[in-house]
């Protein structure tokens, strides 16, 4: 203690002559820092309502709610986050996890309101004065709480795969499957988009847990063609996947296949379970494709007796006779079909309705009949010369390849078409050319330009890798013949537009841009139609039709009360749509059979 200790404190008096450090009027504007975590903003147009913000919020401050004028559509739940500022702790994890980056925070922090309920609001929908604030917390560049990059799928090298019809895709290893499954944010947008509403987040969770049998049970609950769909599904789910906004969508199709790869086939039957006790009802199904067999699967599990008539040598329908083996090995179709058979479904192959058995007979012998006869007739371009014997249809050739017929591959082939079937036949013929002539010489001419191409991008890419030339925006004008009537090529014009102003199919061409594509064979792959010749004339008259297709109600029932129709023949070509259609028909038939019992 010294005299200094007595005098020193008086130095504090100097503060009397300093400016006050506090603000005299506390309501003065004082903007928050540039990255201040203030009130929320949401770009509702960019938001997809995936709900990851709701999932990550540890205070349950966020609820996903329906919003007027925002419609539910593929890839958008139609819901938007409503935030309760009585619960929010401004941690901004919702901003960090936001898949689209639509959710942000402004640097605004003052909000005075007398109604406490006002503090529960939908950012971006309930207009606020900070909606246009430019500053505030945004997810920093590169700051991700979920992995953006897809785990690469290993495939056979182009030079290896072109030599045979061996399956191209390897499938994920357990480690890769786990990594890919981890990317899923379980938003469920895919479930709504999948035609058959598979429990995708749940089976992906099963992969993460390593519980493949649980995953398989989930697969076969909604899709008896999981082996098939795990390989060739058009995977609309992946177009809805929330993760694609951060990078690539989750490889949902490959994960489905991964589950089927991991469970021994001997276990399938036990996992799927036994059918219900027999009801005594009988159902006939015409066509053993995905739609027909899905209906058979559902009805058999419900205890009904199901008999399937299949015109061809083997069951499987369009997947077997329309999709090449390098994409979908036949034994994988057999696995799904055998599982359905094991539930008691009888499949009579080489049994053509109309010849071996008539529709009238089926109507009399069974309680209900389902038509699921696919699209086995190819359409023709009807250009001059298209009736030439060296002009064939893709479906016929693909069927011949499946049946193991000897096909002499011409040295030069031209394919007309830009869809997946065109790619399928081009790649199949390329393999045959390679096997028989040692080289690939094949041109695909598509009506659409690459910006509006119909085939999957990976198909186009793999075609290129296999040496197939794809020419876009080329309209076929005529088959070129030499003086001996031998086919020598195809004449095409450049396509200016495909549809007219009313949106009708009416291609217009630039005639000055003419090309001749040399070839010994021209294959038409421009679409398919149903072969309805099995129906009797009388029945054809009685049934209602819709632009050449059978008219059905939402459940797949035709205008005849005993007859249903499902699959490609009513919905157009797609495996998973056919499966979904099969379920709908099965439910409808089951309700009908129950009513009959009462």
């Amino acid at each position, binding site marked *: *203690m010294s005299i*200094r*200790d*007595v005098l*020193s*404190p008086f*130095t*504090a008096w100097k*503060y009397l002559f300093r400016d006050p*450090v506090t603000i005299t009027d506390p309501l003065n504007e004082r903007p*928050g*820092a*540039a*990255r*201040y*975590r203030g009130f929320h903003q949401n770009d509702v147009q960019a938001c997809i309502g995936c709900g*990851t913000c709701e*999932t*990550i919020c*540890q*205070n349950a401050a966020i609820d996903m709610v329906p919003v007027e004028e925002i419609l539910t559509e593929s890839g958008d739940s139609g819901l938007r986050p409503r935030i309760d500022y009585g619960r929010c*702790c*401004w*941690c*901004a*994890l919702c901003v*960090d*996890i936001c898949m689209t980056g639509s959710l942000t*925070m402004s640097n605004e922090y003052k909000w005075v309101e007398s109604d406490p309920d006002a503090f529960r609001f939908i950012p971006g929908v309930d207009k606020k004065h900070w909606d246009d604030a430019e500053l505030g*917390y945004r997810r*920093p560049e*590169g*700051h*991700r*709480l*979920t*992995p953006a990059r897809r785990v690469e799928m290993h495939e056979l090298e182009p030079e290896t795969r072109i030599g045979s019809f061996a399956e191209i895709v390897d499938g994920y290893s357990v480690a890769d499957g786990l990594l890919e499954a*981890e*990317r*899923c*944010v*379980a938003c469920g947008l895919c479930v709504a988009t999948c035609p058959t509403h598979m429990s995708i987040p749940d089976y992906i*969770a099963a992969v*993460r847990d390593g519980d493949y049998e649980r995953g398989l049970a989930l697969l076969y609950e909604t899709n008896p063609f999981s082996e098939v769909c795990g390989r060739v599904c058009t995977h609309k789910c992946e177009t809805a996947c929330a993760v694609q906004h951060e990078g690539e969508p989750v490889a949902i199709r490959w994960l489905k296949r991964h589950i089927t790869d991991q469970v021994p086939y001997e276990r399938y039957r036990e996992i799927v379970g036994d059918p219900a006790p027999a009801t005594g009802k009988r159902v006939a199904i015409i066509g053993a494709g995905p739609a027909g067999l899905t209906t058979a699967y559902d009805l058999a599990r419900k205890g009904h007796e199901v008999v399937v008539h299949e015109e061809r040598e083997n069951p499987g329908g369009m997947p077997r006779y329309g999709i090449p083996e390098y994409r979908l090995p036949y034994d994988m179709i057999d696995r799904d079909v055998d599982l359905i058979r094991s539930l008691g479904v009888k499949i009579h192959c080489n049994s053509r309705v109309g010849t071996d058995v008539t529709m009238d007979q089926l109507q009399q012998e069974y309680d209900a009949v389902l038509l699921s006869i696919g699209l086995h007739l190819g359409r023709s371009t009807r250009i001059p010369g298209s009736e030439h014997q060296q002009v064939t249809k893709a479906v016929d050739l693909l069927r011949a390849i499946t049946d193991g017929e000897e096909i002499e591959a011409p040295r030069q082939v031209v394919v007309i078409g830009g869809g997946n079937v065109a790619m399928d036949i081009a790649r199949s013929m390329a393999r045959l050319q390679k096997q028989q002539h040692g080289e690939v010489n094949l041109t695909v001419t598509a009506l659409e330009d690459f910006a509006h191409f119909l085939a999957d991008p990976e198909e186009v890419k793999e075609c290129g890798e296999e040496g197939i030339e794809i020419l876009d925006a080329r309209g076929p004008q005529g088959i070129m013949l030499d003086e001996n009537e031998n086919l020598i090529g195809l004449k095409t014009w450049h396509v200016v537009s495909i549809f007219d102003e009313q949106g009708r199919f009416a291609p217009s061409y630039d005639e000055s841009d003419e090309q001749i594509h040399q070839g010994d064979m021209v294959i038409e792959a421009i679409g398919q139609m149903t072969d309805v010749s099995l129906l009797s004339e009388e029945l054809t008259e009685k049934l209602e039709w819709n632009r050449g297709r059978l008219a059905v109600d939402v459940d797949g029932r035709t205008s005849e009360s005993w007859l249903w129709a499902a699959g490609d023949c009513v919905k157009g070509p797609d495996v998973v749509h056919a499966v979904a259609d099969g379920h709908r028909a099965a439910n409808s038939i089951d309700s009908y059979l129950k009513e009959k019992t009462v």
Partner: protein
Amino acid sequence: MGYQPDRSQYPQQREDGSLDIDLTSGKYLKLWQGPQHPGITGNMSVELTVCGDEVVEGKTHVGYLHRGFEKLMERRSFIQCFPIVCRICVPEPDFNEYCYAAAVEELAGIQSPERADWIRTLILEMGRINSYLMYLGGQAGSLGQGVIGQWTTYVRDLMLDRFEELTGARIYHMFILPGGVRGDLPDGFNKRMEETLCEIENVLKDVYETMFCNAVFKKRTVGLGYIDPELIEPYGVTGPTARAAGVAKDVRKDQPYLVYPELEFEPVVGTDSDVYARADVRRRDLLMSVDLVRQILSKMPNDGKLMTKLPNVLHWKIPRGETYIRGECSRGEYGYYLVTDGSGFPRRVNVRGPSYTHAVALLERLIVNINISDVAGLMVSLHTYPPEIER
């Protein structure tokens, strides 16, 4: 000099060691101090038994701020615990964020990037400065010197501005995520930080003249709350409280973490182990933190990643394991004991806040024989924050 209590009326001890206090005798009075009172940042009660104006016994009562953080975390995913942990200590939340993040990183087998470690260290030292500034105001205020609190609050507010521009928040920064930190230093940050540090140094000079060179403050604090250095180990005393007793405990040196091995500093040690010594150690420690912030900003690498790649945090599972992560906060050793069982939630999170040992066992020992008017000053000198007592 030292404090000279009058022990003439001090109660006898019973055979079991407890005090023989007969409340009906009229000699003693029960007095509740708290749960709101100037001796502590937060809510906590001391049940005093006084004889005249002298405390003969003090029992601590805690739990007023119990929000069950540790239990809450057992039902939160690993990422969801991140916004919770900072709330365990209001004035210096960043240690919770760091210890939790480091524990998760260790058990999950991930490594935060180097630049993130520098920024983490910066944040921790900024938080230490803030905590000490709040302490100095409280210590002076508890003994009637309100002006110090006004000054330190002013400079603390400047530091909160720096926190705001760096982390996006003033109090609960929520910036140190498992895997790294959320953002980089904003443009011009170093310059503004330097201005803030200079202002803090200026204010600390005034604080020194007014508070530490002050006959009244010395009269009241020298000799008050003496902690025998031999009590340091058995009572689990850490941080400035231990260092004021001459025990150079500092986790930053003893078990260096983050980038402390690359910084030059020596633990600040005192000798007298009383309230005055503890305040002085903290003042000097504060100045050392100011120096450390300067060192960090000058030595930090100019660029680099801020976050390591995380798995999908929505279903982040961490293998079975346990770890204890500790760090030196402004009050002593802060630690997180984390147990994981392979699921998506922590099996157990135990937070070791230094306040637990200081505010309960140590206080009950020190409070005996002091004057009622010194209780608040003594409690502040232990620098405790109740939320971390009861987590």
